[in-house]
């Protein structure tokens, strides 16, 4: 590894990095704007200037942009030189020429990269005394608020939206100091990843529009690490709360899964937590025909306990509830009476996924991004697993790069130069779907057909992998050749059994040929795979079986069963107990409704498409009558077995061998850092003592959290917590999300202490 000298001190750094990347990784603070670890360098902002010296005798040095300077052995530089410091401060002064200084009313205020960098450079006095230029804002739809005057023209938004995510409708317009970033006319942004602009933009040009309704500063938010349950990818998120409302969902970095970016479904899809449809009090009806009325928790519980006692009870689980909730239901009703709350097709596909994952290796999103070829069979990933589609796009972008930079040596981080070399070349990404998808334009070849035709194509590819023949020019041969030539290949599928089997056949064929291949099977919901691992009977059987008393866990039967079957089944049920957080058609027919906590208010474990168990923690304590489902279900038993989350999680690990490692997904509630819990609130959290003063001037005790090592308080450890417990990205001088740099082993690499979560499935075939 090359050694560079910063102020005459030697440091070892990785050879393939630029100087900025290397210095930040060593813990030095260099201000920057246009550089982003996932987007590379373009040298536009000129903010990251450092001074390099020719040799140890050179005292004059030369100012260079660290982001555009490759690391080389023996390089000597200084970050803290009066000349560069003045230059960096002047860059901020230039940016401030037209910046509106509206921090007090700006939603970015408090987690603004521009604020951080301004303080870092020390610029504090405005010398420009002329009028500022102004722009008109655009309406960019319901999710993104646009405030163009704040723009500092770092070009990150277009580079992310256009180059990285393949969006079409955001661009840069105009020239000189009238450069404008937006759409060519007002209108909602079309990309599935538009929400990331909020985090990519270093200042308040693109801000989270739903979060604007709550006007909360980052330091006032109570946050907890969690997992998105909108699809089976299991992206890591941070839920942020203020005044009992879920204010904002932020990306939580996970090297193997979502990296720096989320899809809009994950970022903006959790509004139901604050929704009108939320069930906040237990509901019960006196008799069939009477209407559902609010009641006390005790009353609802006693009704439910009575209904359950001594009867055969059927439990219907849910792929959107945590493993623990499903396990608690299974324990309550017994394994024989536990039905997986999946539709017929989902049931089959989930069980097949499980079998295939036990046989063949799978790949994380990061492994997809760095693979050399991929084949998508049957899935429109932009709807079923959008973040996976983004990962595949990176594969398609990255793979020709690797070839080009052999012919013309350019460092991979030199974004523009690399794209120039690659031009329109596409990587070895192939897609076979029933209809056009947005991923098609990144694919080298596309095939449209019915699902059985797609399965046929998959089998043909498998056959062609087995018997390579150069003469036939069919699509299957073309795909097979590309897959065989790849160092690492990924086959993506899901949904349909025949297609999944065909995908598995391709993987098997590639492995027979000695190639490293992995199978990725999408899952429709956050815990579908976990539910299959827990095991239970098919929901179609429930219609036949029937029972007097049925408990439905966070599920709507009308969405899983044919309308007639669901109606008939519920007609026959004497007592229907439903646990859910929002009103559905099933809760409307229930006799007792127990209000369940949402994912943002509960602690639980979810298993993603690759069999990785991940822990979510409650961002805020639910309202008094709202409880986590496993708590309600435990209360329905004759005596309490599981006072805390760790109890239920341990019990599950013992009872279900597949989940033996589930408790390791995150530290247990007993975890302490220097004797302290990890605070969910920032040290700057405001109004703690007065926030409930309108109710009682005496400050109440903060809610207890027996379930996790996190505290509903600003007090606790100030150290960097273990990765599974990171509740916010903050470091001294770094208030924006860019503070993330300080949490990684190497910038853009895994988190310090390893990425959270634990894989539960060990495939027979070793990768």
């Amino acid at each position, binding site marked *: 590894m090359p050694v560079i000298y910063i102020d005459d001190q030697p440091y070892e750094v990785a050879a393939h990095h630029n100087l900025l990347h290397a210095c930040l990784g060593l813990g030095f603070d260099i201000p920057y704007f246009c550089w982003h670890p996932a987007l590379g360098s373009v040298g536009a902002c000129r*903010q990251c200037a450092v001074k390099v010296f020719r040799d140890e005798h050179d005292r004059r040095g*030369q100012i260079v942009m660290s982001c555009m300077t490759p690391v080389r052995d023996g390089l000597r530089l200084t970050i803290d030189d009066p000349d560069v410091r003045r*230059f960096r401060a002047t860059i901020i002064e230039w940016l401030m020429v037209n910046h509106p200084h509206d921090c007090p009313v700006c939603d970015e205020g408090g987690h603004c990269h521009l604020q951080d960098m301004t303080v870092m450079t020390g610029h504090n006095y405005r010398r420009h005394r002329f009028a500022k230029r102004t722009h008109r804002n655009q309406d960019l739809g319901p999710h993104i608020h646009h405030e163009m005057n704040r723009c500092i023209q770092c070009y990150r938004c277009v580079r992310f939206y256009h180059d990285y995510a393949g969006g079409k409708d955001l661009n840069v317009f105009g020239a000189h*100091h009238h450069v404008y970033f937006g759409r060519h006319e007002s209108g909602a942004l079309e990309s599935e990843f538009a929400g990331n602009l909020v985090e990519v933009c270093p200042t308040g040009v693109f801000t989270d529009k739903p979060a604007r309704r709550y006007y909360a500063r980052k330091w006032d938010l109570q946050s907890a690490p969690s997992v998105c349950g909108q699809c089976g990818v299991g992206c890591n998120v941070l839920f942020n709360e203020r005044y009992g409302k879920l204010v904002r969902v932020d990306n939580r970095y996970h090297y193997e899964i979502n990296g720096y970016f989320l899809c809009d479904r994950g970022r903006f899809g959790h509004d139901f937590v604050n929704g009108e449809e939320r069930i906040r009090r237990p509901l019960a009806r006196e008799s069939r025909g009477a209407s559902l009325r609010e009641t006390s928790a005790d009353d609802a519980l006693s009704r439910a306990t009575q209904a359950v006692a001594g009867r055969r009870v059927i439990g219907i689980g849910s792929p959107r509830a945590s493993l623990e909730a499903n396990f608690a239901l299974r324990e309550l009703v017994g394994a024989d009476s536990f039905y997986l709350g999946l539709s017929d097709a989902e049931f089959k596909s989930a069980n097949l996924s499980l079998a295939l994952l036990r046989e063949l290796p799978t790949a994380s999103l990061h492994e997809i991004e760095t693979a050399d070829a991929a084949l998508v069979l049957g899935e429109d990933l932009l709807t079923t697993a959008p973040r996976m589609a983004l990962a595949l796009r990176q594969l398609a972008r990255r793979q020709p790069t690797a070839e080009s930079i052999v012919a013309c040596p350019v460092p991979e981080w030199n974004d523009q*130069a690399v794209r120039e070399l690659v031009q329109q070349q596409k990587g070895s990404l192939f897609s076979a779907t029933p209809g056009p998808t947005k991923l098609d334009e990144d694919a080298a070849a596309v095939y449209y057909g019915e699902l059985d035709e797609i399965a046929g194509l998959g089998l043909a590819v498998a056959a062609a992998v087995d018997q390579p023949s150069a003469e036939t020019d069919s699509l299957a041969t073309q795909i097979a050749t590309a897959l065989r030539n790849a160092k690492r290949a990924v086959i993506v599928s899901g949904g349909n059994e025949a297609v999944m089997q065909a995908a598995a056949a391709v993987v098997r064929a590639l492995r027979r040929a000695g190639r490293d291949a992995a199978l990725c099977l999408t899952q429709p919901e956050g815990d579908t795979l976990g539910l299959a691992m827990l095991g239970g009977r098919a929901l179609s059987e429930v219609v036949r079986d029937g029972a007097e008393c049925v408990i439905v866990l966070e599920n709507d039967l009308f969405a899983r069963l044919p309308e007639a079957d669901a109606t008939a089944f519920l007609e026959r049920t004497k007592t229907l107990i439903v646990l859910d957080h929002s009103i559905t058609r099933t809760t409307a027919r229930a006799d007792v409704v127990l209000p369940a906590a949402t994912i943002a208010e509960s602690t639980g474990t979810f298993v993603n498409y690759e069999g990785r168990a991940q822990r979510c923690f409650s961002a805020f304590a639910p309202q008094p009558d709202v409880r986590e489902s496993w708590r309600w279900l435990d209360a329905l038993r004759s005596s309490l077995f599981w006072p805390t989350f760790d109890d239920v999680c341990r019990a599950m690990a013992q009872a279900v061998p597949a989940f033996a490692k589930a408790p390791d997904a995150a530290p247990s509630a007993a975890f302490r850092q220097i004797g302290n819990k990890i605070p969910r609130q920032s040290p700057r959290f405001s109004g703690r003592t007065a926030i409930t003063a309108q109710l009682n001037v005496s400050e109440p005790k903060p809610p207890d959290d027996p379930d996790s090592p996190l505290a509903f308080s600003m007090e606790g450890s100030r150290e960097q917590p273990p990765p599974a417990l990171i509740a916010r990205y903050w470091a001294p001088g770094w208030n924006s999300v860019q503070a993330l740099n300080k949490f990684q082993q190497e910038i853009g690499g895994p988190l310090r202490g390893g990425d959270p979560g634990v894989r539960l499935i060990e495939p027979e075939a070793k990768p």
Partner: protein
Amino acid sequence: MNDRPLTGRMHPDRTPLSLREYEQAGGYQAVRQAVGRIAPVEVMNLVKESNLRGRGGAGFPTGVKWSFVPRGAQARRPVYLIANADEMEPGAFKDRRLLEGDPHQIIEGVILASYAIEADIAYIFLRGEYTLAARRVRQAVAEAYQAGWLGKNICGSGWGLELHLHTGAGRYMCGEETGLINSLEGRRATPRNKPPFPQLSGLFGRPTVVQNVETLCNLPHLVTHGAAWFKELSRCKDGGTKIYGVSGKVKRPGAWELPMGTPIREILEDRAGGMRDGVHLRAILPGGASTEFVTVDQINMQMDFDTCQAAGTRLGTGMMIVLDDQTCPVGMMLNLERFFAQESCGWCTPCREGLPWIVQSLAAIEAGRGEPADLDILEMHTRLLGPGLTYCALAPGAMEPLHSGLKIFRDDFERHLREGRCPWS
């Protein structure tokens, strides 16, 4: 032998030479001599030997530039050659003269340069406003194709060249070689970072050489008459002639082809006829708008790359702008800087935000609303918009007249501040 190879055979009435006229005057002889007869590397070595330096402003030795282009099996095809005819600098009009007066000369130059670097496709990137030149070049290209000077298998050598004419859409940045390449690709003409240099990854990510029109026009004569002859044309160690121009309040503004290294005084007095009556010379921008001022006492300076550099300025395009005593130097600089601020591409911070600030400060001073602190602001910009600190050379170029102007015309700036008005208005 002709001492004005570039312009000597042009018609005095400014009509273009037709293909027949051009060929009769010895045109396309160089192509016949070189293509297929001598190896491309030999052509490159000839150019290296002749000390031909780029006439676009930077003065980089042409042969050396070509030597970076990968050859043979190494080269990723196609290789491109681009003639830079996007002449947009204030006061510059030499390329227009060459394109309108003798369009076949530039085509021949393009063919020779393309042959030397083994290019497959060539472009002439023409400034959009040059409609007359566009018509004439388009016609000439068609004639050249017809005569077999362009197209497949030129002179039976097996080597072919496609030549396209592209008219620009108007941005000064298109004159910067990487900005030009981006524009040609149908993108915004923002410059690119170097390295990688265009010789390795240029147009469409392929090896590309961008050469000024005047440089290319020298090639046919250089190839026909040899390096020794070419070096003898000049009055300094750089080879060849140079088209010098003068604009401003002189008796006969215009452009003339003279030996490289002709002193300013000769150009100004012998060719341009000296200053108009009653007007006195104050300073000269010797190489166009983006070069440092030289004062009257430097008027004997030879106009060549090295002498200009030694004197703290640049030869640039060789199209000098003359400042007289009846024009306000602050106003003149304001006009120049407004042009540069307007033509900034908006990519990097110092240029995008710094130049408009300079314009605002200069405008305030010119309007009598200046403050002493404005001079410090201007001075700061001349330091911090330096080479290497900005993304490309536009802002450093824009700072050159301001940098020297602040020193030479310090008294005039202070008079503006003191009197609260422009003394010339």
